[in-house]
């Protein structure tokens, strides 16, 4: 099943021509409207006129998450604010979030991309799509929501949480497609078992799962326990949100929406492009966006690309499941977490850098974040209530910065292992 067969199965040569035209227009647009890009282009002596083909994207400068931070909040926008109709944000590496803006046309394009994604999962006008991604600044909820509506499906905007109610709605509304994080899908499966819900009462056929890394083993478990086809979707708010790439029913790699995004794989050290099939950092250029087009955005996600035609008939390039990161970002319940965010809270509080460790675990399919802080002389008090206040304050501060719940544990000095004098900051026990 296709959403737009012509686009999805386009001859690759033709596709490259489409990309070249869109890239030219994008380069011109950012050069003329975003001071950051004008300077970046000028600095390396490249002009929008130099772009003749899709491959010429290599001539252009990279964009980093830090660049969005430096131009916080709206400095990277290529449209005047009067044309921006929505903003979304994801957490930044420290303090301020990364903000993206959408024009009305961007919102429409995004809806089309997500409608296409639901089609990949077998969705159609008759589907009932339950959107259990969080709604808000996070792109997951609203991204899936608009896509489901554009598809013409019945859209159930339930957002995340309240699992029993999710299951009740699934039964009563006859939900056919569930959209949420894979760990939440497993959590729902567990509660279905606990409640003793009869599978015959559920009409679930597929799940569109993303916003966090997951393994093939987890996919098999979700498929067996929920009795669905589990589709992996990829996206990031900087690029547009969910809808950048998605599995088709054959699950042989995520088709990139190449009519909107130009993908490259680079060596993160030399920054040189790598040939198809080789593993490296995914770099994306948005070629059909108005609000905040990004040139060669370094996603920090490690994957590889294939342009072989898929069994589904689509010619769109496929990316492998993301195999890791080139930075220390963690994804906890769909939220981006950088150790530096936690560190800055602790430094502010203790005025000296305390030793700390972040322990990530998945308990009952729920990501848990524990921050262990060594009690130094500067933090120590002889009174229990002072230490408890300290621990609660650290917890509250971290939660307000990250936007997710954490546990804070005070530990004795030197309990956190140091290797070559440097503490290992993150222990991720999730095996993903």
């Amino acid at each position, binding site marked *: 099943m296709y959403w737009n067969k012509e686009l999805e199965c386009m001859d690759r040569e033709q596709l490259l021509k489409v990309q070249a035209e869109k890239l030219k227009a994008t380069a011109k647009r950012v050069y003329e409207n975003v001071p950051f890009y004008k300077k970046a282009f000028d600095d390396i002596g490249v002009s929008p006129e130099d772009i003749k083909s899709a491959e010429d994207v290599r001539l252009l400068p990279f964009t980093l998450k830090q660049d969005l931070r430096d131009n916080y909040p709206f400095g990277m926008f290529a449209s005047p604010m009067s044309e921006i109709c929505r903003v979304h944000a994801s957490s930044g590496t420290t303090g301020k979030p990364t903000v993206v803006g959408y024009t009305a046309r961007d919102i429409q394009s995004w809806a089309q991309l997500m409608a296409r994604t639901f089609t990949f999962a077998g969705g159609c006008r008759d589907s009932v799509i339950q959107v259990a991604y969080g709604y808000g600044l996070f792109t997951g909820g609203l991204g899936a929501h608009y896509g489901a509506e554009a598809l013409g499906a019945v859209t159930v905007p339930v957002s995340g949480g309240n699992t029993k109610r999710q299951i009740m709605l699934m039964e009563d509304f006859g939900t056919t497609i569930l959209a949420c994080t894979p760990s939440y899908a497993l959590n729902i499966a567990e509660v279905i078992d606990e409640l003793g819900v009869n599978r015959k009462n559920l009409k679930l056929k597929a799940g569109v799962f993303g916003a966090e890394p997951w393994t093939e083993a987890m996919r098999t478990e979700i498929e067996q326990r929920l009795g669905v086809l589990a589709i992996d979707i990829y996206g990031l708010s900087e690029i547009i949100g969910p809808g950048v790439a998605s599995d088709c029913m054959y699950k042989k790699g995520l088709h990139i929406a190449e009519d909107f995004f130009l993908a490259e794989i680079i060596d993160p050290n030399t920054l040189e492009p790598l040939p198809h099939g080789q593993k490296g950092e995914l770099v994306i250029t948005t070629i059909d966006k108005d609000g905040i087009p990004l040139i060669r955005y370094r996603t920090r996600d490690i994957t590889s690309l294939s342009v072989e035609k898929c069994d589904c008939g689509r010619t769109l390039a496929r990316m492998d499941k993301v195999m890791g990161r080139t930075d220390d970002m963690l994804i906890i319940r769909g939220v981006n977490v950088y150790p530096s965010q936690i560190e800055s809270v602790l430094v502010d509080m203790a005025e000296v850098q305390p030793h700390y460790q972040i322990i990530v675990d998945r308990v009952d399919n729920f990501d848990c974040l524990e921050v262990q802080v060594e*009690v*130094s*002389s500067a*933090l*120590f008090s*002889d*009174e*229990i209530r002072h*230490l*408890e206040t300290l*621990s609660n304050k650290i917890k509250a501060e971290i939660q307000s910065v990250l936007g997710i719940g954490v546990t804070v*544990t*005070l*530990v*004795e*000095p*030197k*309990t956190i292992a140091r290797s070559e004098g440097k503490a290992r900051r993150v222990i991720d026990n999730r095996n993903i």
Partner: protein
Amino acid sequence: MIKQISVFVENKKGRLAKITDVLGRGGIDLIALSIADTTNFGIMRCIVSDPDKAVTLLKDGGFTASTTEVIVAEVTDKPGGLARVLELLDKAGISVEYLYSFVRTPSENALILFRVENVAAAKEALQTGGVKLLTEQDIQNI
């Protein structure tokens, strides 16, 4: 001035054994001891023969430790003995952060250790009320 030492202790097996071992090897005599605990951690508070040396030993051993000034009062070991002392503090508007008792060789009096915010005011209130306070020398002779 009577110095109490306080040590941060994680609620983990073997930690108290380790602390007392560090003190024992350093020739530190434990005179009084109390432990306050929460779900995740505790604070071990004690009166020792040489508080400054004890803190140095513990810090070298990788523990977080500090000293705190406390008051040790002699209280009649009879019903109402402690109540009378606490009443004196209450009347003087002094709140007690924590206290614990300890005994020395058989005697008619119990010893109560107090931790208060305003040590000087508490001392005055107790002494005016006729309560005997121990000196650092008294402690060392226990």
